């Protein structure tokens, strides 16, 4: 299937080429629209082929995404997209496989598949649209909803400690972990480009506004006027600082925890320097815990980007090694591989 395509140069495409003819059916004003636009604008820049691009999803508002992409795609069942993607990516290393998921899909019903896909380092790009609510089922609290959230299913407030998606991904040994948000197309495209280029499992949390059931959940940090003071852009090799004048920064305290400080108080040299490629995920983990929800200064960008062998490639290597050692499989010989005897 791949040889024919290889002979043809990658065609020059525009956003239109990546858009299907299906009418987009998210609620007007939903953050999903801007994510869809960012992806459709990024793909022409990546130099990839439509026929080798696959979008897979589970169930939820976000999961309608594949229908709007003029690529190969599958809208599967709740939570299972990472498992389905695992089989596809392990057998088709020539494909770009994207998994589009939401906080309920990826972290609740599909939590098991998510952590194992990350641990195995399957060559897929997982986009988690985090809106901290169940949208498609009309407004129940989700595994990322804040404690005491009042929803249809929690009229007296939810009791549950929310998941921190990035901490979870880092704990699952993910090799690429990043965060972006639906209000900044440029940042989204840059983070998604990095996620796509990473070999192995990439995990991107995208803060996404559900204007119907959880409107403005991230406004306090992603709103135009709030960003400078509330978003902490992570830049590899650079001191971690933010604020309109870069007046705030992040330092490591004596007890090893991270703290937000004023640069003027500690001096520039005291700031923590971001290192995406550090072998040890501890610093990335600490950064993921810096804010406890979209009400405090929150790091965005690439938290971790390290190399580790990718699952499908290793599977292929084992096959190649077996063929080199034993020759290609011979069915008649297989059937005779135990003790045999002749009758007549």
């Amino acid at each position, binding site marked *: *299937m*791949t040889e*024919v*395509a290889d002979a*043809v140069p990658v065609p020059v495409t525009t956003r239109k080429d990546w858009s*299907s003819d*299906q009418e987009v059916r998210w609620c007007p004003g939903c953050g999903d629209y801007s994510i869809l636009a960012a992806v459709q604008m990024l793909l022409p820049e990546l130099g990839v*082929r*439509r*026929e*080798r*691009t*696959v979008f*897979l999803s589970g169930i939820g508002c976000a999961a309608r995404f*594949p*229908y709007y992409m*003029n*690529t*190969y*795609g*599958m*809208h*599967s*069942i709740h939570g*299972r997209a990472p*498992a*389905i993607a*695992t*089989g*596809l*990516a*392990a*057998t*088709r290393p020539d*494909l770009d496989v994207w998994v589009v998921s939401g906080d309920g899909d990826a972290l609740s019903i599909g939590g*098991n*598949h998510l952590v*194992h896909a990350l641990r195995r380092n399957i060559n897929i790009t997982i986009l988690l649209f985090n809106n901290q609510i169940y949208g498609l089922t009309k407004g129940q609290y989700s595994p990322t909803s804040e404690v005491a959230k009042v929803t249809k299913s929690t009229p007296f407030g939810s009791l549950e400690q929310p998941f921190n998606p990035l901490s979870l991904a880092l704990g699952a040994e993910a090799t690429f972990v990043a965060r972006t948000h639906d209000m900044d197309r440029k940042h989204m495209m840059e983070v998604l480009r990095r996620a796509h280029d990473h070999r192995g499992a990439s995990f991107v949390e995208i803060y996404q506004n559900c204007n119907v059931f959880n409107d403005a959940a991230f406004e306090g940090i992603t709103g135009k006027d709030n960003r400078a003071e509330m978003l902490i852009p992570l830049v590899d090799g650079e001191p971690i600082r933010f604020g309109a004048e870069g007046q705030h920064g992040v330092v490591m305290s004596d007890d090893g925890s991270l703290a937000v400080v004023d640069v003027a108080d500690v001096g520039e040299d005291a700031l923590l320097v971001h290192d995406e490629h550090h072998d040890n995920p501890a610093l990335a983990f600490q950064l993921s815990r810096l804010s406890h929800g979209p009400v405090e200064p929150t790091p965005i960008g690439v938290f971790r980007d390290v190399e580790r062998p990718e699952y499908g490639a290793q*599977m292929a290597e*084992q*096959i190649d*090694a*077996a*063929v080199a050692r*034993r*020759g*290609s*499989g011979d*069915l*008649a010989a*297989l*059937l*005779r591989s*135990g*003790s*045999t*005897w*002749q*009758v*007549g």
Partner: protein
Amino acid sequence: MADTTTNEHQHQLLDRVVIRFAGDSGDGMQLAGDRFTTSSAVLGNDLATFPDFPAEIRAPAGTLAGVSAFQVHISDHDILTPGDAPNVLVAMNPAALRANVATLPPGAIVIVNVDAFDERAVAKAGYATNPLTDGSLSAYTVYEVPMTSITTEVSKDAGVKPRDAERSKNFFALGLISWLYTRPIEPTIAWIEARYHDKPLVKEANHRAFKAGYHFGETAELFESSYEVRPAALEPGVYTNVTGNTALAWGLIAASVRSGLPLFLGTYPITPASDILHELSKQKHFGVRTFQAEDEIAGVGAALGAAFGGALGVTTTSGPGLDLKSETIGLAVSLELPLVVVDIQRGGPSTGLPTKAEQADLLHAIYGRHGEAPLPVVAAKTPSHCFDAALEAARIAVRYRTPVILLSDGYLANGAEPWRLPDVDGLVTIDPDFATEPNHVDEEGNASFWPYVRDEETLARPWAPPGIAGLEHRIGGLEKADGAGNVSYDGANHERMTRLRAARIAGIAHDLPPVDVDDPDGDAEVLVLGWGSTYGAIAAGVRRVRALGHSVAHAHLVHLNPFPTNLGEVLARYRAVLVPEVNLGQLSRLVRAEYLVDAISFTQLQGVPFRAAALEAAILGQVERVRAGAAGPGGTDEVEGDNGKVVRS
């Protein structure tokens, strides 16, 4: 039985013998049975085996719960079952004796490891008095052999610690039985050498124990006779001895080779299906990818993802796993992608009897999904038939773009039989027939691809794995518009799609061989209808009834959904239809519903295969009923068999 005389011992020819090796789970009885089977197979006997072991890996030693047994039936003619009752029981301890003695016919040989019959062990097995001395075994010929002490003794000067040496006593028992039944010793010695080449002390101890057992038979003045079972007159060809799970794994590889599709197995370990994973993971040079998933759902999900990508996607499981996979199988029904789901049935409900066989997943396989979600179901009938059944399941899956459930069970999975190897070039070829070009022109005259345009003959949709420009398309679990494949909530379209999916599966019947009826005299009035692993027991029961001078017909279904097109006509030919099953009557329900036939259910669920004797009695009951003019529609009656239940309602 002809008698011939050798130097010291009598030597008798037997036409068949059933031997049961029994001991603690840790005693290596499965290994001893397996080696005996292999040397008998190489000798050319026909054979059937029945490994029977507890679910616990090391159940408490010396207790009834911990007894592990391996029964093997060898003969000089073709046989169908592992035998109703052992002629010889090898009991490594009192618990093994107590657990098995009830199945022995009078006159059977009992060989016990007398070293294991101390007071404590006897009491632990639940005996009030020592069965070797209290006269309770007087109906049998009992040989008391000090297996433990001889085994430790012979390895003393080899540097093996007595505790380790004792472990070789299964090889002593194997050696003794090998002498008693005149088996060649070379294959076993060669096997010991190869298997333990990196563990010289274990190798030495096993080797010595095996030979000691063999020589014990020859030199001890204990046995009056040794026996011989000559090779069976099997059809000419090359044979190998194969278990159901191995044959099934090889059948999947054959399907990959004959279709050119790379094989992908997504699975999760579960008894009794795991051996398929083990076998396939050894065969990477066939391009086989095996994926041990985080759970059953991920196993089938990954297989479906691989199928979307153009691989032969397979998942293997047992009942509890089939429950978990149901939602994904339903998705595959909606996606109309090829997928093979293998269910090695075991006793249920829930965890049930993990190591025991049952046929109770049939209705689950056919109906166990929400919505109208039909799919084909294929069942294997003997260990070697698992090969053909796997190939057939893959053929249907690929040709009709559908998930197929392949049913085997714990009895077929672990049981073994000689298999006449097929000519691989004569095996069916499977054409993936991938879509290669657009199949539709839109209003503006542009070529496009519609994923739900159907083949006129098969009603199957095109299979278009990613990779071809112009065929980009989206599929999913939401209802799709007929043809175009876009999401559609239209009621009329849903009804059309539902009926199309059903018609596609029903239409497979025209692509199946007619059901074969074994009715040699052509005048039988009773038909025995079976499916799955009861094949051997039913065929043996039928033989017995025929030997009594009665005509009886036997048909055995491989395709459970859809049924072969001639099944209704076949059922209508007989005055009585008896359906033996290891469940509470599932096939009988299906044929009653489908054909309005007064099928009579004969069932048993004891985790063991039917005994031929029980089926003989059940069939005779029907023969007599028909003769008495009682057969025909209507009425209710219920008859208890000796290990089964006949229900008419």
